[in-house]
């Protein structure tokens, strides 16, 4: 209703200006679905960007629509796409790329890259983030709010356990060893403080992917139509995780993603794996000295990336698509990306952003903010395939079955592989 009124007003204004011949520059409106995925006054920041962009680009109006979580947002975007009225642009998970392509909902970004400046801009992003944004030789998404998994540790508890608080574990063996030393039991033999916690509720695949990459396997291929769940190295990585729980240094059963930071604040756990997006949260709520480190290395270092990309929808008009492209480019300029990273804790998406004066100073004052960037050279694309949610679910179910002990690691991964093979048959 409001938009209708608004359109009427625009129409009225246009009619009123007709006699003066000022209709040359018609207003282009871009609807922009944005998921609210982290805490803080995030909608206010986005609103400011939209206003600022409109000021610099008269004739274009960006209307941010806050659509809930990532999951809610893609539901709304795809539903409205089916109804023939999708948003012009939206930030959605980078892993939704194949789903969006299969639904024929988006257009490649390459369609709009025309000048040398555009080319340079597209080449400026970190390679690790582009892995999830390209398929079949085309770029489908523009990295915007991206993250990786990092290790947070409690420096005080490290000291108490006789560990060097400035030397976080760098290998699997060191992490297992540190976790053992950091596990505290009371007189009755009940664990009061665990050494390590890797969340396994909801989306265990993302954190497990870190372990798999460190053991030398990327579980999905670039075309998103084959997976390697039953690779011996993947089973070995899962066994490492299970062994940590069997040794009693990691809680048994499923560890809740949502309460993991709280466990860390309550000193129920000394080390945790979680997203860099939690950095500001931990900085605000941890009442002790904490450190942030890259994930430890198995055969090598590694972490998946995560987070959201800009997509441009196919059913928008060419003028709207051009304007959306301009907006995405404007949003990812180094200065703005730097500010965005400081405001939220997300990883800035280009080298140039880290070279800005503002972010350099921020990194010098608060070194943990740079850990995620330093880890990027080791990072791989977040697990993504065709029919992504179903294939991911097969992996999640397998991981949870193995972690709760109803299946062995080998059996769980074999079952997940069989299910994934069945699902991906038609995409070969």
């Amino acid at each position, binding site marked *: 209703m409001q938009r209708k009124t608004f359109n009427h007003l625009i129409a009225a204004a246009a009619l009123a200006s007709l006699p003066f011949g000022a209709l040359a520059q018609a207003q282009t409106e871009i609807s922009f679905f944005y998921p609210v995925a982290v805490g803080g006054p995030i909608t206010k920041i986005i609103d400011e960007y939209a206003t600022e962009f409109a000021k610099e680009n008269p004739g274009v109006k960006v209307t941010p629509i806050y659509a809930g979580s990532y999951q809610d947002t893609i*539901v709304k975007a795809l539903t409205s796409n089916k109804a023939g009225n999708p948003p012009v642009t939206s930030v959605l998970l980078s892993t939704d790329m194949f789903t969006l392509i299969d639904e024929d909902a988006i257009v490649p970004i390459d369609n709009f890259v025309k000048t040398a400046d555009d080319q340079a801009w597209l080449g400026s992003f970190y390679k690790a983030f582009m892995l999830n944004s390209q398929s079949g030789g085309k770029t489908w998404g523009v990295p915007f709010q991206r993250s990786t998994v990092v290790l947070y540790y409690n420096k005080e508890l490290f000291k108490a356990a006789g560990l060097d608080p400035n030397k976080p574990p760098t290998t699997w063996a060191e992490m297992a060893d540190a976790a053992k030393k950091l596990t505290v039991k009371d007189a009755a033999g009940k664990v009061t403080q665990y050494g390590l916690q890797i969340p396994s509720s909801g989306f265990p695949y993302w954190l497990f992917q870190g372990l798999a990459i460190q053991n030398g396997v990327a579980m999905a291929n670039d075309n998103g139509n084959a997976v390697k769940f039953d690779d011996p190295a993947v089973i070995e990585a899962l066994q490492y995780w299970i062994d940590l729980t069997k040794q009693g240094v990691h809680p048994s059963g*499923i*560890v*809740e993603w949502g*309460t993991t930071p709280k466990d860390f604040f*309550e000193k129920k756990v000394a080390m945790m794996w979680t997203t860099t997006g939690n950095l500001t949260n931990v900085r605000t709520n941890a009442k002790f000295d904490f450190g942030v480190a890259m994930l430890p290395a198995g055969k090598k270092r590694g972490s998946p990336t995560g987070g959201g990309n800009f997509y441009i929808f196919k059913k928008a008009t060419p003028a709207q698509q051009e304007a959306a492209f301009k907006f995405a480019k404007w949003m990812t300029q180094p200065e703005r990306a730097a500010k965005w990273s400081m405001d939220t804790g997300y990883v800035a998406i280009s080298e140039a952003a880290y070279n800005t004066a503002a972010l350099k100073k921020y990194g010098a004052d608060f070194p943990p903010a740079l850990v995620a960037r330093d880890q990027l050279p080791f990072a791989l694309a977040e697990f993504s395939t065709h029919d992504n949610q*179903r294939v991911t679910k097969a992996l999640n179910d397998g991981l949870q079955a193995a972690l*709760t002990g*109803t299946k062995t690691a080998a059996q769980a991964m074999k079952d997940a592989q069989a299910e994934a093979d069945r699902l991906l048959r038609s995409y070969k």
Partner: protein
Amino acid sequence: MQARQAAHAYLLLLPAFVLLVAFTHYPAVASLIDSFYSTPKGARPAVWVGLDNYQQMVGDPVFWKAATNNLWFALATIPCSIGLALVMALWVNERIAGRGFLRMAYFTPTVLPMVAVANIWLFFYTPGYGLLEQITGWFGLPSQNWLGDQRTALGAVTVVAVWKEAGFFMIFYLAALQSLNPSLREAAAIEGASRWYFFRRVQWPLLMPTTLFVMVNAVINAVRMVDHIVVLTRGGPDNASTLLLFHLYEVGFRYWDTGYAAALTMVLLAVLATVALVQFFVLDRKVHYQ
């Protein structure tokens, strides 16, 4: 004259009729039709596949897991929440101190949104320092990861549902108890009937219409509640706490397999309709109306 009256009546019914058709009957019929078609994907339009979607259901282990879970969930929540509601209603129907406060306390879970409730319970169940853990800790019991263990996850979400529903049903029982004729109680007292006898032979039979109503609601709720699953376990670990509606949501809005989701909807509808019809036509005969 009669025709005019009929036209008048239909006009009055029209608004409700339009809403029902638009939001209940049309979607149900459309789902039935969709369930015989494949899921359209991008350039591939939907094609007639007959009963393929239903065949897929037979071979879908998650569906069977969800169905069994839902059966247990229903078998636990329906009698527990109704029994608890009745006990609570009988209690707060007596003249006791703090009755108003008690009634309010029992009704509070109903007023709270399910998502908020589930978030509160998430911290009750948290291993290590959650409320439950603190209580079991006093008795020296070992730590238990209620939501993260396949054996306890379904039970844990069931308890939340009972806690949430009992207060709502209590209100109906309380209203029914208040409308009972006080002379019945006096008569029973004169005859020297015990409280248990009075409840068994007088109150319980007179409450039957309410029980039937509450039971129909409880059955519907047993397949309708899904919010707490989303917050507490997301169906995990390894589908141990998946319910039918949650599975349906995942198929429809995570996997975008709308054809299969439509088939699941039809099965759910058929089951619900059957149960409701049995309740109305079989149980209704045994109900004593005043």
